[in-house]
């Protein structure tokens, strides 16, 4: 179980995809949920259905719509763990919940907790 502050509620469990750099969900991840930003340390990683842990998103104001579109297609993350409060990811998840009734909790975690996460480990997220 992950301790943190809920930024957007929901519950999920799955495998951790740990990203060691921020990323733009518009242009940095394709609609199949694969990281296509060549400069990103986890380029080529699939995030669909994973518990995605990262500092936050960056860059484009297109991130909310891109995350929402992935969640609509079923290629988005199962949950998102961030170490910085990230409104763009929260907004994408909130709109997907309203339009498509898809759960993608977003939880703010301590940097130390992020460091302890291991890619591939199974975690459960329950956020109010």
């Amino acid at each position, binding site marked *: 179980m992950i301790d943190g502050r809920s*930024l957007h509620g929901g519950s999920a469990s799955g495998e951790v995809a740990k990203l060691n750099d921020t990323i733009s969900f518009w242009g940095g991840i394709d609609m199949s949920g694969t990281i296509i930003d060549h400069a990103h340390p986890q380029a080529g990683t699939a995030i669909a259905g994973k518990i995605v842990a990262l500092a936050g998103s*960056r860059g484009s*104001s297109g*991130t909310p*719509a891109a995350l929402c579109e992935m969640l609509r297609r079923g290629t988005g993350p199962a949950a998102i763990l961030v170490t910085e*409060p990230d*409104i763009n990811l*929260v907004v994408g998840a*909130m709109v997907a919940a309203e339009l498509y009734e898809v759960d993608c909790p977003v939880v703010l975690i301590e940097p130390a907790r992020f460091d302890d996460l291991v890619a591939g480990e199974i975690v459960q997220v329950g956020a109010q």
Partner: protein
Amino acid sequence: MHLSELRGRLEPEDRARQLAARLVLSAAETSGATELVPIEMAHISACHYSGRASLDFAEFLLRNNARFAVPTHTNASLIACATPTLRPESTDPESVAGARRLMEIYEQLGATPMWTCAPYQQPDGRPGFGQHVAASESNAVSFFNSVLGARTNKYGDFLDVSAAIVGAVPFAGLHTDSGRLATHLFRLQLPDSASDAERGDAALAHLVGIIVGRLTGTRVPVIDGMGSLGEDQLKAVAAAAASSGSVAMFHVVGVTPEAATLEAATGGHTPARQTVIDTGMLADTRAALQTRSSGSLSAVCLGTPHFSTGEFGELLRLFDGRSTRVQMLVTTSRAVLAEIEALGWAQQLDDAGVGVICDTCTYYPPTPTGVSGLVMTNSAKWAYYAPGTLGVEVAFGSLRACVESAVCGEVVL
């Protein structure tokens, strides 16, 4: 306005306003703001089609009778309404038809159909000094803050529209006095031997913008040593620094309104970081912006951000009655097109072989017709994005170099 006031005013049956308010409140909680500040206008990007979710969100607003609380202007679209051949529906039916429907919906919702990334080039899209607004497009956010002294954070898709519906945003970041102070100083140092041409190089503002964006992170930078800059050059700095980085506001000492002096820009504090921009750094940046610097051109793309009336005048002056041998596309707004038509310049541009395109930009995918191979631009923003978004090769040069290259059909730097 305290957050609880907005919470208390929500009608459960008003689903559009309810969602908009929840997004704005969530943004406030995420940023730690306890107050909301009313805005006077909005410039929204959610009207740019980026998948079915864009359309579903807009349809949701329309179905639930959403209304904007403030004048709301539209950023550039994926398609050019008057030039459907630019991105024919057959190349990407879902996106092109989706973009057209999205434009219709935002007009029905009451947005002003400006379809421009440079709303500040027309009087009704130009907020005043100290006004709080909500903007989304990265160069417009930076221009509003930096050049006009209006106040906005960068609001992503959906949150921009929500702010326009609620008419308020969290009082945080660049809306506050302290959030606008510079903490990273850049000093432009050209050698005394630099010629007037080097100092007045039209590409300089673009290159400085790329450097500042790359090195500033999310801080507010202040640039010293630029001399006098006009709005077209400040637009170039804004666009470039928001492409290579996330700069939402910058100061230029002696030029921008909150930087009469270096001390004014920093609030009297010593900048946490200082960087010298020298000729070597400028040359490296120029080299890194182009994938090729010679060869036959297939096209020249100008107008990222949208061309101003002044830039069209300069373009005609540089053509001096000659015409382009390759496709030249210049993107602009409907308002600027009306101005250049009134001046009789539209005909002269047509005679020079220049295609003037409204409503969109040429670096967005799907790739515009005829833009392939080696393409030249005077925009650092275009050069930064197009190799990735369109898969083209890019040559970068000043507007003069772009015109000379267009006339020759090959890159002349």
